[in-house]
């Protein structure tokens, strides 16, 4: 064993190691040889031994109470905590794995196409694609004259004209629409307004 005494920098260090019995046989013999020929060193050793005894006595007499938790209770607590930590680790997502990645790209295209189809259907339903585009408000033409018995439309007029002709609706619509149909046929716009 390599000499340790030569590496210790003070008498206190050497004596502490000597008292702790942590020196190898050769180092121990060397220290005892030093002690035999050095009275102050022997007195220093005695003082250090007393000091050590005092401290040991203090720390030993006033034993820290570990009675609150028994060994078995401590074992149970620790094992429970270890199992709990293991379960929490299992529930956590793996490192680098995001919980939310967002929608797949193809879904955006599908959604855009569906929205376009919906808009197209809505516009078609409102008559936006009819020839001439005369009725942007939608509805095309409405019957302005009906057969009283069959209810069949006898004549129709664009929605705008229907409002001009008969805001009240109902029978007046039929009367006015009859008239309006005739007038429309004759293209007499001024007479239409007078009727109102």
């Amino acid at each position, binding site marked *: 064993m390599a000499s340790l005494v030569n590496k210790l920098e003070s008498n206190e*260090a050497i004596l502490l190691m000597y008292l*702790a019995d942590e020196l190898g046989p050769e180092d121990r013999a060397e220290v005892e040889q030093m002690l035999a020929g050095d009275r102050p060193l022997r007195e220093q050793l005695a003082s*250090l031994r007393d000091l050590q005894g005092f401290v040991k006595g203090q720390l030993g007499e006033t034993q820290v109470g*570990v009675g609150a*938790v028994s060994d078995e209770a401590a074992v149970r607590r620790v094992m429970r905590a270890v199992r709990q930590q293991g379960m929490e680790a299992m529930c956590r997502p793996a490192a680098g794995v995001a919980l939310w990645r967002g929608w797949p790209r193809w879904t955006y295209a599908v959604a855009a196409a569906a929205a376009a189809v919906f808009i197209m259907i809505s516009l078609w339903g409102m008559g936006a694609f009819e020839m001439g585009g005369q009725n942007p408000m939608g509805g095309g033409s409405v019957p302005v004259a009906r057969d009283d018995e069959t209810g069949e439309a006898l004549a129709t007029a664009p929605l705008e004209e229907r409002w001009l002709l008969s805001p009240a609706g109902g029978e007046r619509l039929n009367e006015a629409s009859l008239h309006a149909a005739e007038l429309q046929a004759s293209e007499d716009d001024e007479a239409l307004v007078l009727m109102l």
Partner: protein
Amino acid sequence: MRLQVPEESLPVAVSDEALVEQMRLGADTAGEELVRRYHRPLVRYLQRLCGSEQVAEELHQQTWLSIVEHLGKFDVSASSGGFKAWVFRIATNKANDLWRSRGREKAAKDGLKLIVDQHAPQAGHRLEAGEQQQKLGRAIEQLPENQREVLLLRYYANLKFVEIAELLGCPLNTALGRMHKAMLKLKDLMEEE
């Protein structure tokens, strides 16, 4: 799947390192044996280090959680003190973390009242042993942190000076010097009125 090693199959005096190897294989009983083996010295050490039995038990639990988490990194050959030194190093780090987070080092240096008094039982008449206990606790608290660690590791962990030096990451001469100063200061504080 956990390997259940029957308790009766464990030899009477199994070394710490052998139990660690069994723990790595998943033997719960080996872990329980280690906890049982180190409970009292570890808690005594932590209690002296942090001044509270309640906190010591909490730190004890945290120490073992850390041990289990890092069990794969423990290398017997890398540490002269073996598993014991490793356990107490982790425990010391846990206590130091708590110490720093609470700012008690500053409080101790300023001579403020210590947490140990906060945990003292509400009693009108204290036994002499209790007073002595508290006096010792206050004296230990007043030691510088590095001296306190060496002193407690020596008396409660029963570690060798070489192991203590390695655990604390300081030269052997430094550890011995701190031990000497700690003993002198403790004696002075205990002999004060």
